[in-house]
């Protein structure tokens, strides 16, 4: 199920302001379809705004947002979005939530939609949960349903806005591993937003640090802790690694370098 060709999502020299106050300035970001790019930044720094630009919900004041060299005109099925909460449909059960994008696409009969939705639920560890209603699922399980719904249309890119922020630490660690497994299997390009630095370091193949007001890219790091997690290392082991701790300090430095005193 690997995307046929390498796809590229690119933000070039993008600036954005709300009501005259600049939020993002001169942002460059490249996301290829085998990368897991994580954006960290302080609260209110403009991470969500950046993801909304990439998703096509919002257009930039200046600069370009392109997919494979073409300007993005709006949201599209090749860029699926996963939010922290609220984005699932409570009137549908888990399976029908996952099948929803297929129904929109049209041309796929119901039996096939159910088959694909169930397969996708199984792929995120929710085999047999299809007929559950959303309130019969835990927060982590609901987040898995959201992930399955995003994956079912085999998008080229997965845009995730703090998807695990509302979860407890243990569930969160499990979801991080689940995401890495999904990503290594399908190799969709993932744009992952978080303000948790450990999470960012653990998941990223490329870590982008936003800092300042308006926010600019203060640092870009190439990492591969995710591969170590996939190879069987526990997140605790990795966190205890002195090199990991140095990186954390370095990112913290960059994050608050140009923050005005609040």
């Amino acid at each position, binding site marked *: 199920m690997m995307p046929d060709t390498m796809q590229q999502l690119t933000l070039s020299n993008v600036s954005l302001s709300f009501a005259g106050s600049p939020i993002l300035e001169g942002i460059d970001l490249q996301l290829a379809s085998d990368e897991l790019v994580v954006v960290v930044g302080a609260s209110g720094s403009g991470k969500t705004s950046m993801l909304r630009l990439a*998703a096509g*919900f919002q257009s930039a004041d200046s600069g370009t947002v392109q997919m494979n060299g073409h300007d993005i005109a709006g949201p599209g099925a090749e860029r699926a979005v996963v939010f922290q909460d609220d*984005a699932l449909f409570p009137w549908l059960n888990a399976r029908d939530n996952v099948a929803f994008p297929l129904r929109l696409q049209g041309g796929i009969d119901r039996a096939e939609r159910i088959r694909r939705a169930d397969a996708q639920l199984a792929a995120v560890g929710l085999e047999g949960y299809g007929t559950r209603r959303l309130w019969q699922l835990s927060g982590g399980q609901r987040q898995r349903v959201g992930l399955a719904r995003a994956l079912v249309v085999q998008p080229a890119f997965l845009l995730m806005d703090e998807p695990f922020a509302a979860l407890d630490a243990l569930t969160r660690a499990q979801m991080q591993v689940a995401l890495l497994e999904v990503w290594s299997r399908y190799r969709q390009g993932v744009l992952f937003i978080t303000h948790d630095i450990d999470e960012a370091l653990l998941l990223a193949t490329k870590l982008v640090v936003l800092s300042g007001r308006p926010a600019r890219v203060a640092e870009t790091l190439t990492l591969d802790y995710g591969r170590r997690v996939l190879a069987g290392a526990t997140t605790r082991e990795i966190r205890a690694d002195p090199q990991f701790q140095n990186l954390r300090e370095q990112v913290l430095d960059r994050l608050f370098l140009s923050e005005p005193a609040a």
Partner: protein
Amino acid sequence: MSALQKNPLRRKSAALVSAITITAVLIIWWAVTGMHGIDPLFLPSPGAVLAKFAEVWREGYVDATLLQHLAASLLRVFAALAAAIILGVPVGLAIGTSTIGRGIFDPLVEFLRPIPPLAYLPLIVIWLGIGETSKIVVIGIAMFSPIAISTAAGVRSVAPNRIDAARAFGARGWQLLLHVRLPSALPEILTGVRIALGAGWSTLVAAELVAATRGLGFMIQSAAQFLVTDVVIMGILVIAGVAFLLEAGVRLLERWLVPWRGKL
């Protein structure tokens, strides 16, 4: 949901207090009517009202049994409800989703909302005559605004993330409305239906003022003209009881149609 509804012990004690209140009112009523000098024409005893209920149930009053009066009234109210939903939901959607829609319909809804039915009744009769239609229209007007307003509030309060997620999957215009906005607004729409049923039911007497031959409102008015106080009071109690049952019915419907309410 309030803490009162969640806590079974508190709910039980609330029900107990209500039962005590009702019993107390009945006892006072019974005691007062037992006193000397209280004319049954002014206030008949609970027993007399109950006897009247049985009599009207079996033999009827003004050419129809109680059940037939009730059926006539319910039919009008439900016909009006159907019309109010068919018109009110789309109007509410228009108000809640488009600026033009809001510009057109908001003043209309706000204009109709506070007018008491007795005020527009003569106009409706002049326009539509004294037939069944005008009765349904009078009730329907009272129901229209609550449904339109609740629907508008419902579609406006849809979580933006829900809309955005659907848009990212390619949903546009009508699909968003049908698959996301409308079902998201369903809890509020049903609240609107509950309020509308209450409002419609309470305009019943007004609606049946003109040239009705059946209906609870008509029964009460006929009885009032001949000072048959026990039928008047019995009619009022039946109207109150049915209102209570309608409310309970919609709440059941809510639990069945929007089981996620209060849970997510």
